[in-house]
């Protein structure tokens, strides 16, 4: 046995939070762990996240274990989690007041192990050992969204993990900056690595973090790569903003196959693949009994809703995205996923025809920054009941387009003659009113006018 190296026993800091004075559970697990060779630093009652983490750091612990018998834990868990992540140590929470929903939510937030009223000692020991092993291997040093900054992480989006495609410039950049201000961990993707790094380096002194992944979104592996990056780094994924876009303009008579293919690949095929890969992941999570609380935001365009003059292929691709959002919403709702689309109006590389705006976003109604809060809201807890919707936003306006609606119905006679067709069709067309005019760059930016 001379070659055997005795492993240092697992070391765990245990206590309750706030004014939760029930210690039975904390005491029980402490004694059980000590019987199984753990080193337990028992802190008893009246702890704050700061104190638990400080002692864990000082004692070089592998895990912080919190026993809860009061709902106070809800107020402390995000801060505690952020502190544990910062230190690269695990967090386990247990207590009989934890409902199944609580347990799922804690796991989603990133707690490493959660034990409810049914947990057996053997199960707890097994799970805690797994965490010790992972921590020792350096795996759970995965920073949470909140670990990067010193700011408060409170807020509805804090700790969520979101993928943003096309994040280097324009709207994607504005979304990434806005989300990171709310404490979100953004997995930012773009094919332009330099611009992406420049965007990420501008994210400073905010509670959230940005992790960059350079990849062409039309690469069939791109969605898988993004998902794996999110899971490897943050252990979870709560949302996707499919924002990457490209513009190739030209009348139908002149648009090349190459441009057509690019437009369809970027807007339709890549978006579809992203939905398929993410949807399958969330479906598996839901099937495994974990609560999924995820949101997807796709990017359509007023061109896709109303048509844009001389942009038939772009308009058709964006129309496809709008309908994709509606059908995907229906398909994924059973797994806890919302899918919506926005039609943004902003001054970006793709809308150069809008010209230059004011230097400060506050003075420019077409600045991308004005669209970003809508994205943040759609990804947050307040929008859990919003799915399958298309929102048009920008230039100081927000609207929910009514979309294609059935018109007034007329009886269609069986085997109608051509003579009968004319008056019927004329009546039906007249009842629907004149067709909406296409959008044009000359008409400016407001499709509603």
């Amino acid at each position, binding site marked *: 046995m001379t070659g055997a190296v005795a492993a240092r026993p697992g070391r765990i800091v245990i206590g309750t939070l706030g004014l939760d004075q029930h210690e039975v559970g904390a005491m029980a697990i402490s004694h059980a762990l000590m019987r199984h060779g753990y080193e337990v630093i028992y802190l008893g009652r009246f702890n704050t996240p700061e104190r638990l983490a400080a002692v864990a750091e000082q004692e070089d612990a592998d895990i912080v274990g919190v026993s809860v018998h*009061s709902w106070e834990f809800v107020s402390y868990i995000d801060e505690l989690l952020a502190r544990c992540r910062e230190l690269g140590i695990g967090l386990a929470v247990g207590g009989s007041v934890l409902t199944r929903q609580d347990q799922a939510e804690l796991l989603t937030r990133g707690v490493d192990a959660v034990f409810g009223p049914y947990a057996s000692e053997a199960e707890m020991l097994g799970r805690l050992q797994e965490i010790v092993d992972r921590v020792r291997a350096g795996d759970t040093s995965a920073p949470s969204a909140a670990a990067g900054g010193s700011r408060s992480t409170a807020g509805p989006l804090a700790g969520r993990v979101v993928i943003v495609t096309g994040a280097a410039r324009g709207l994607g950049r504005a979304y990434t900056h806005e989300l990171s201000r709310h404490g979100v961990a953004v997995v930012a993707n773009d094919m332009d690595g330099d611009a992406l790094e420049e965007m990420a380096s501008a994210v400073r002194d905010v509670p959230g973090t940005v992790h960059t992944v350079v990849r062409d979104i039309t690469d069939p592996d791109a969605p898988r790569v993004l998902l794996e990056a999110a899971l490897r780094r943050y252990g979870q994924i709560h949302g996707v903003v499919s924002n990457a876009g490209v513009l190739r303009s030209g009348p139908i008579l002149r648009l090349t196959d190459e441009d057509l293919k690019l437009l369809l690949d970027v807007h339709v095929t890549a978006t579809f693949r992203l939905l398929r890969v993410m949807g399958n992941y969330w479906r598996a999570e839901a099937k495994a009994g974990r609560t999924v609380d995820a949101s997807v935001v796709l990017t359509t365009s007023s061109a896709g809703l109303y048509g844009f003059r001389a942009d038939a292929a772009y308009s058709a691709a964006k129309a496809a995205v709008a309908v994709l959002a509606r059908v995907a919403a229906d398909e994924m709702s059973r797994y806890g996923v919302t899918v919506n689309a926005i039609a943004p109006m902003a001054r970006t590389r793709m809308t150069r025809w809008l010209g230059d705006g004011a230097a400060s976003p506050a003075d420019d109604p077409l600045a991308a920054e004005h669209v970003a809060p809508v994205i943040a809201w759609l990804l947050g807890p307040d929008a859990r009941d919003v799915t399958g919707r298309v929102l048009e936003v920008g230039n100081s306006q927000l609207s929910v387009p009514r979309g294609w609606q059935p018109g007034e119905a007329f009886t269609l006679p069986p085997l109608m003659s051509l003579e009968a067709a004319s008056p019927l069709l004329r009546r039906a067309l007249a009842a629907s009113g004149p067709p909406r005019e296409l959008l044009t760059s000359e008409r400016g930016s407001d499709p509603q006018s």
Partner: protein
Amino acid sequence: MTGVAPQAVAATTASGIPLRPFYGPEDGVRDYAIVGDPGSYPFTRGRRRRPGGQAGGWIQRELSGEGSPRRSNEQFHALLAHGALGIDVIGDNPTMSALDPDHPICIPAVGTTGVSLCRKQDFVELLEGIPLDRITLSHSLPAAFAIAGQYMGCRPNGIEPAALRGSAIQAPLYSEDCSYSTFLPYAIRMRLCLDSIAFSLREMPRFHAFLEDTYYISDGGLDVVEEMSLGLLEIREVCRRLIARGLPIDAIAPRIAILVNCRMDLFEEVAKIRATRRFFARMMREEFGATDPRSWSANIAVHTSGLTMTAAQPSNNIVRGALQALAMAMAGVQGLEISTFDEPFRTPSAIAHQVAIRTQQVIQTETNVSAVEDPLGGSYYVESLTDELERRIDAAMRHIEGLGDIQTLVEDGYFRGVFTNAMDRHSSAVQSGDLRIVGVNEHVVPPEDDTFLHDVAEERFEPDHEHVERIQSWRPSRRGAPLQACLERVRGASADARADLMGPIVAALEADATIGEITGCLREGQGVPADPFTYAAQRQLTAVAQ
């Protein structure tokens, strides 16, 4: 004859008393004088009901209090409308810790596990319209403030303090080591206990100012011998000190009540109550020289064990509560509260309250078990167990007293060790299956099939931030000068070991001081930081460093 072959497996009671397959005449009462009739010394068989009193009566009550004082007041009215004869009001975590709701550490907990109380107006709102002269109000709150609050809260209802009935939990020895920590040093805890009892004896003579609560100390897993030996030790210690102040034992003893636990070994729990009554009678008469028979007969109420309630299959808890309540009805207790079926999850919901009250009503009105006093008296087994428990409780007390004086034991953490060992023993027994619990380690169903009553049990309410804001916006409206003068008096009284604390505390509450401010001054008078969290953190860091 009881001579039988030894059993293959040694059966014991929950506390480990060896059991034989059956008991016979020589195990039972050898000398009836040491049992005595109901209403006669040594009160093994309990009190005799008052002439013309209601047969088999006990005070039925339920634990209550949630959210703001007004919301709890509505809850009280609902409980009384259901036929409750008493109310047991419990504070939320901040109130139990004598902290104000707007202290940063408190905000996440305000009103979620009890009522939030921190000022005179809160007590007035809590008690509005409650017929305090007809029902009993038991306080599971820091006692000095509970007594002061009820004293001040009754007058707006047109009721004089002299008419008040009910009880307040005095826990000077054990509160810091269990779940009633108020972050006060031992010396000041004991003085608050003694001063508030003396105050109540003078101002509220019908009120049980000394409720010895062995429920809360034992529900981490203490057995019946540990529970009652610690409880009777605390009674002895407090009585000695009150007598040393010149109060006659015959004024003190009738105002003592004991709130005990009831777990699932039902005969042992019944025997515990009978042994406790006998022990108490002897302590009062033989040790303290009480001559009034009312001083000898213990007033015992029960709160059935929350620890025996399981998160698995909550409907089973209704059965457990009914069995425990039946046993306690047969033991002849003066008051009874059943831990509700949702106990593992939350403070009681309205429906769980109703089930608990109805359980008591069914037992009292339909079963006839309490038609005669002490119906189990004379059972060979119960009498044998009563004798054995009395012996063991006495031996345990002698053992502890042999270890040193009580104050040293408290300050050295001896009792903390008793509590933590019991918690470990209990959880190990559950995990190993030595303690068999239906639905937990036997007859388990998968969580996904265990849904009945979970919707009620898992309902949850938010901290009452509105009440926090109410307190925050109220603070600046107080008159500063008289308030500061009153607080200074509290600080001064705390620093003077011979000063009375209740007078300054009542005056400070009348001047709109908060409980948090007053306890802060009590701490400062003892030379420790006013903010309890600074104080607690200091103590704990010392403990960690050891």
